């Protein structure tokens, strides 16, 4: 019995050690002169962040920096903190993180900052005192203006449109609507918003709301869905009503869940930001920060092949949202 036990456990150890040896020299960089940047997603399996990583890998290659990518694989909110603390001990030069828990992770980030590690947040910010810069993927103004511009383009600058939102009270939705309306009043006075309906962030409800909108408004030219489940929901309603092409659908959403409708010609545009560019810019910012070329007060930052980006206070702006349409949507997988 004892023999079996020891053999089994030794076999296990052999596997443990074998795993580490498969990548020789991988540990020699942390202490060297090469800059090490650690990048953390909210969760590791999320396709959105895998897409960010694609851009980050490209940036790391161009810059010749060492990129460590790790993040939680389970929904434990303490994991992000633990990984940050491991990175502090590991001695990385810069940490870029998409925060799951704003307050919680700030504790660990402040500790890292105190040890001289440069901190960048992207996608979701931490407390402002816990990081150096935030790479802001989209401002409410950028989103609102892009949605209205695209809707006007699809409608030929005139006609009725309706908005499906998540809820009438959600702060970010209200903010976006404010900018949509400002843009409409300023640039497209012939466009008219006839309805604003909440869908509670549910695809089914969005679909029934869209169906009701279609039957109540005969002149409706366009449905704008500003929460992600509403985009496929509205598209399904338009498709089932047989109004494909007559009523345009656009919205703020993820490429994967809209691909089908985009290829069917139901949905014309899905607006979001380019996640690969987000990852790319994040790594360039982290590198510049670690090298000392990016400092508080800078107004711009150069990021390789993407050119120059604006900095507003301590947030680096990714710039205009990205429009996914029939031509480019298949290049993205998230």
């Amino acid at each position: 019995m004892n023999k079996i036990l020891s053999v089994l456990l030794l076999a296990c150890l052999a596997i443990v050690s074998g795993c580490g040896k498969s990548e020789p020299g991988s540990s020699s960089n942390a202490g060297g002169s090469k800059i090490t940047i650690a990048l953390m997603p909210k969760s590791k399996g999320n396709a959105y962040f895998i897409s960010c990583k694609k851009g980050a890998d490209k940036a790391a290659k161009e810059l010749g920096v060492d990129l460590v990518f790790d993040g939680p694989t389970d929904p434990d909110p303490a994991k992000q903190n633990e990984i940050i603390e491991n990175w502090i001990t590991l001695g990385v030069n810069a940490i870029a993180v998409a925060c799951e828990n704003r307050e919680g992770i700030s504790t660990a980030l402040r500790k890292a900052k105190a040890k001289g590690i440069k901190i960048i947040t992207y996608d979701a910010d931490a407390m402002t005192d816990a990081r150096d810069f935030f790479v802001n993927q989209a401002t409410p103004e950028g989103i609102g203006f892009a949605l209205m511009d695209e809707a006007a383009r699809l409608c030929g600058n005139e006609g009725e449109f309706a908005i499906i939102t998540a809820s009438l009270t959600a702060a970010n939705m209200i903010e976006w609507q404010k900018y949509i309306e400002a843009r409409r009043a300023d640039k497209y006075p012939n466009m008219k918003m006839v309805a604003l309906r909440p869908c509670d962030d549910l695809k089914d409800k969005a679909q029934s709301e869209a169906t009701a909108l279609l039957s109540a408004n005969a002149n409706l030219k366009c449905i704008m869905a500003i929460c992600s489940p509403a985009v496929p929901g509205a598209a399904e309603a338009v498709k089932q009503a047989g109004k494909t092409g007559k009523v345009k659908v656009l919205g703020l959403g993820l490429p994967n869940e809209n691909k089908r409708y985009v290829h069917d010609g139901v949905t014309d545009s899905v607006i979001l930001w380019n996640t690969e560019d987000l990852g790319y810019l994040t790594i360039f910012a982290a590198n510049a920060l670690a090298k000392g070329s990016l400092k508080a007060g800078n107004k711009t930052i150069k990021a390789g092949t993407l050119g120059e980006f604006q900095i507003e206070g301590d947030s680096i702006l990714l710039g205009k949202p990205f429009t996914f349409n029939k031509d480019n949507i298949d290049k993205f997988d998230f």
Partner: protein
Amino acid sequence: MNTDKHRFKTAILRHETILLCVVILEWIYFNSVGLRFGSLDNTFDIMRHSVEIGLLALAMTPIILTAGIDLSVGSLLGLCAILFGKFWRDAHMPIPLAAACTIGIGALAGGLNAVLITWLRLPPLIVTLGTFSLFRGLAEAITRGVDTFTNFPASFLFLGQERWLGIPAQVPIFVAAAIGIWLLVHRTTFGRSFRAIGFAPEGTRYAGIPVERRLAMAYVLAGIVAAVAAIIYTSRLGQAKADAGTGYELFAITAVVLGGTSIFGGVGTVHGTLLGVAAIAVLNNGLVHARQPREVAGMLTGLLLILALTSSTIPKMLASLRERRQTPVTKPITT
């Protein structure tokens, strides 16, 4: 009987010795590939990160020894964390009082498990599966899933984040709990009855031991320990949210079983559990330093666990195989 017992004892000893070797070899290996793995800072990191799961595993040991299980400890950690936050922020209690009330809640919650298991004679797996959802659901209902407690005073955050006499401040609490539970399980007749219950509950009852009361005690203890873990967790993260401790019950059970405690009860030690916690914690941390992806840690933990489990059943299987080989000899005679 006596020799059987003796052999069993040495086997247990072997299990723990081997586990100790595993921990040491893990250490040596990661120290050779990771530049800062062996540093004092990192050693403290490992300790800091394993205190909460370690506490839950310690409390889980007596329960599994009685052939029971408590799936609710992770959820209870979450509930206690947000209640602690509520006591402090909304009821304006000073931190020590809020902590005391939280521990009281933990005891009550453990008591609920205990009552259902001992009075109603329901299986622990079902009861704690119920309270697993109940406690997490309560935590989510109270905070509506979004309310987060934060901005705790620095004096409280000291417990989870700073050092006291050179070591992480929460480690002394863990050491005290480990010593306490070790003494309880291994040095008191009270604690020895846990193993007796796991071996043969009816026999233990005939021996005059109040089985129900002992069982109840184990679950209440787990509730109290989960509350303590919740306070340390809140202090380490600086926030309390309804999702605190998600999945911790499984990590704790893994550590206990890896430590050589039989899931069928009766067999196991507290120091084995501690080694189980250490083996997993060192592996998790070491892989980061070896620049290996985190998923490998889960895979290797699973592998370690399966090996630990099979290593105790394979000898039994071999024994029964040997018996079966003998039966054909007797069979032709009877037919």
